[in-house]
């Protein structure tokens, strides 16, 4: 009984507070904050219970029949928990950050309501037990994030929202067609270890290839695979906590996670390899990695540079998935977590610069390190992590991706990784140079929050990035210990390769 309802509880723990928050008066700040935090903590507690259970070979499955032959399934397995835990932890930090960020801003009830719905959709995506359920929450995610993207209501935000909707609803449509088609061919599309399509008659291979293309294009929009990435840099007009959510916790992650599920648990990585689907995916990911980094080089707007960096970095996950062999899988999966921690830190910091000093452009960042040393330290850790400096999180990901490339017999991927690291350095190091080594200007563009004693900015803005920055260091340093993201990724990779022996 409990086993069935735990996954539902995880979804409801943000859904119900979210609904309630919608109808709170703007002035009920305390109650709203309390609801947010209770929801976030309850979710973490439920996830803790399930983590313990899954380690002990427990299964948590909830099943509800929507139409004959069509089930809504929520399932907590190792892969789901990897993403759920990431989302829930980062959601807690993002909520705290957003409370500080939006202090005194209008429409906070609406904001936090949709914020909660957004996380609800994300954990739903993470725990979806079949392709249909995945699609349901994937579309819900689109609807819940749109109001956040246009939250500021400016002309620019409205336009970004328009583009965002166009891309994501279009992607959703492709995903729907692929999903229906697959259900027609196979009767179901449950997520199971090793996939379930290998048993289909061989004459369906051609159709399965087309369906794969539709599905990957559908989730590729949210994962910002080139050329489907156009919405992401525009969406950076949203408030910083929303950007953090889009880039690290929810939207692009949902897309990347979809690629993982489709390749491993619908098609099965071995079957996908036999259909010649992995190499094209690897090429698409490689192109995205290079293209995103190149575009990032030329952005002066800090958030835009970070956005293009996301385009590039998220495709590491797709790349890892496409490298046939457990090491590549481990690299991709662990990067799902590592990229989230690093990118959320960077966006928190970008938000801090903007909120505290009015800095939006890289050319305005000269000497910011002296005025905001802690924020700048966190930013530096995030940037080094992205470049892949050992022993930070990003290094671990790249190490396994490199090993995976060799294992899969695709040495050209090493060149892509090297080029991408160089480009990462090329677009992050100049920023760090400005922050630390250039003299500060006589006046900041717009200083909203003055220095108060030791606090360089509001405490709720400073503490979340410091915590996530510490995590960048810790998950790298302790990658080899039990319960680290790397350890968990190894557990998952073990289960996805059924017949394969290195």
């Amino acid at each position, binding site marked *: 009984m409990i086993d069935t309802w735990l996954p539902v509880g995880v979804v409801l723990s943000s859904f119900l507070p979210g609904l309630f928050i*919608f*109808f709170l008066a703007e002035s009920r700040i305390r109650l709203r904050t309390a609801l947010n935090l209770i929801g976030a903590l309850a979710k973490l507690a439920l996830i803790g219970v399930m983590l313990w259970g899954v380690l002990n070979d427990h299964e948590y499955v909830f099943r*509800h*029949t*929507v*139409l*004959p032959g*069509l089930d*809504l399934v929520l399932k907590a397995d190792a892969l789901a928990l990897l993403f759920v835990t990431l989302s829930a932890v980062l959601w807690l930090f993002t909520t705290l950050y957003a409370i500080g960020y939006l202090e005194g801003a209008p*429409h906070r009830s*609406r904001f936090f309501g949709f914020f909660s719905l957004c996380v609800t959709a994300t954990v739903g995506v993470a725990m979806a037990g079949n392709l249909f359920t995945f*699609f*349901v929450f994937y*579309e*819900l995610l689109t*609807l819940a994030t*749109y*109001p956040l993207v*246009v939250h500021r*209501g400016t002309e620019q935000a*409205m336009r970004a*929202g*328009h583009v965002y*909707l166009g891309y994501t*609803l*279009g992607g*959703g*449509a492709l995903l*729907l*067609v692929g999903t*229906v*088609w697959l*259900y*027609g061919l196979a009767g179901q599309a449950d997520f199971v270890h090793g996939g379930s399509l290998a048993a289909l008659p061989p004459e369906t291979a051609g159709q399965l290839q087309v369906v794969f293309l539709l599905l990957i294009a559908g989730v590729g929009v949210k994962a910002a695979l080139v050329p489907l990435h156009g919405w992401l840099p525009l969406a950076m007009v949203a408030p910083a906590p929303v950007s953090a959510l889009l880039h690290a916790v929810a939207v692009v992650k949902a897309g990347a996670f979809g690629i993982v599920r489709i390749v491993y648990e619908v098609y099965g990585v071995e079957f996908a390899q036999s259909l010649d689907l992995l190499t094209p995916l690897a090429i698409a990911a490689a192109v995205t990695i290079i293209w995103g980094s190149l575009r990032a080089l030329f952005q002066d707007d800090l958030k835009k540079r970070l956005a293009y960096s996301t385009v590039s970095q998220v495709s590491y996950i797709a790349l890892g998935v496409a490298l046939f062999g457990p090491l590549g899988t481990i690299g991709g999966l662990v990067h799902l977590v590592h990229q989230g921690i690093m990118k959320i830190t960077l966006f928190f910091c970008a938000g801090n610069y903007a909120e505290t000093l009015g800095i939006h452009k890289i050319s305005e960042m000269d000497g910011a390190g002296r005025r905001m040393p802690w924020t700048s330290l966190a930013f530096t850790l995030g940037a080094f992590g992205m470049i892949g400096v050992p022993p930070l999180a990003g290094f671990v990901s790249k190490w396994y991706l490199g090993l995976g490339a060799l294992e899969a017999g695709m040495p050209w991927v090493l060149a892509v990784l090297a080029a991408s690291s160089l480009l990462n350095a090329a677009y992050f190091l100049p920023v760090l140079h400005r922050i630390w080594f250039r003299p500060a200007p006589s006046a900041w563009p717009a200083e909203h929050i003055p220095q108060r004693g030791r606090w360089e900015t509001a405490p709720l803005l400073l503490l979340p990035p410091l915590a996530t920055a510490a995590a960048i260091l810790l998950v790298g340093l302790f990658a080899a210990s039990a319960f680290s993201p790397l350890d968990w990724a190894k557990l998952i990779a073990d289960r996805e390769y059924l017949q394969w022996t290195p």
Partner: protein
Amino acid sequence: MTDFLDPLPWLIMLPLAWGTLAFVLGPGRGGRLAIAAIALQGLLVLQLAGQLLAGGARVHAVGGWGAPLGIDLLADGLAAVMLLLAQAVALPLAIYARGYFAAQPKGRELFWPMTGYLLAALNALFLSADLFNIYVTLELLGLAAVGLVAIAGGQAPVTAALRYLLATLLGSGAWLLGVALIYGSYGSVSLAILAPLVGADAPLAATLAAALMLAGLLLKTALFPFHFWLPPAHGGAPAPVSALLSALVIKATFYLVLRLWLELFAPLTTVAAAQLLGILGAAAILWGSALALAQTRLKMLVAYSTVAQVGYLFLLFPLATLVPPDAAESAVQGGVMQAVAHGLAKAAMFAAAGSMIVATGRDDIGRLGGVGAHLPLTLFSFGLAGVTLMGLPPSGGFSAKWLLLRAALETGQWWWVAVMIAGGLLTAAYVFKVLRRAFLPVASGDRVTRVPRTLEFSAFALALAAILLGLFGAPLLALLAVGGAA
């Protein structure tokens, strides 16, 4: 005695009775009576649904006379689903209407009696078992609907009502001609007697009759290119009336098309005719959506959305005609699901639009700023209804789209897939056109006033029902399967 307790005749008698009483009692007490009576009708339909699920389709001989001299009432799964939809939409709308007419009293005296007759005609139509009885109910339905369009008075509504009246009379005229040809060919109008006769031998007159009746019904259902009368009629009437008309009245004629196509004239159907209906449906989806996007008045936008959504209903015909039974069943289920989902969602959308118009004092999409801040529940309802119309999950509209897509892919008719996907995206475009406006702050010089709570909650109940239909659609499909209509 058991006959007396049979729900079938009461579903027709009750609304006739309370409609007449409401005329005598006036809008205040009449409205309260109507709400209580519709709730009772809802219970009767639930009782009927239970009977059907337990014991199969039911026949009731009115007054104990029975066919061929008397009139038979027939309730199978399809009829029960439509009856359920009618009462489920009417009850929240009746509650909504009391609040609405308190704020905008124009036409309130005639609303309740007309609505009673409208529901009586609808229920009678769904339960009719012969072609001539259907003719009478069609005319009653048309007259009540036209009357409702005109109740608020004013030049535009009266013009719209007249145009609607002429269209609907022409449609029933075509139906009557068809009935005459059928009677001349077979000497009966009973659906049960005719079905085997048409299957055995279909002279030219029967084909002509089928074409005439179909054309009449398409005109009344406002399928492209016969949609000209719908937007002004649905867009110009008071909001509760628009909701009733868009949600229920056009569904009644669609129900007849479906019934004739699947049962009486099934031996006459051809792939070409089915594809033609599908093409008209596709044109309706694209043209209706494009025009909805071009509207500047909120209610006209919602009305054109109805033109587009009607198109989805007709996609079921190419998907269900002369294809493997699996795909056909999926298509019919999808079409009926779409009828129910659209009924609930469109009623919610018109109700929410009506609340916004009451609150802002004008019917202008460009002046919706502030609605999001002052009427969050209404905007939320509009959004939820929009989700159903776009066919996003989880919603009744999505379940419908899923079933239709599945049938299309199974029969290899991928072009309908493209139409459905394009239609969904166009729907998103016009729904978000409204939502994004409503999110903006109040423009200077505009005012947004509060509206009665009943307006907000009744619209929300309808929208929520459309969403829940997506999660709990299986029982509805089980009911639909009773009597083998699907």
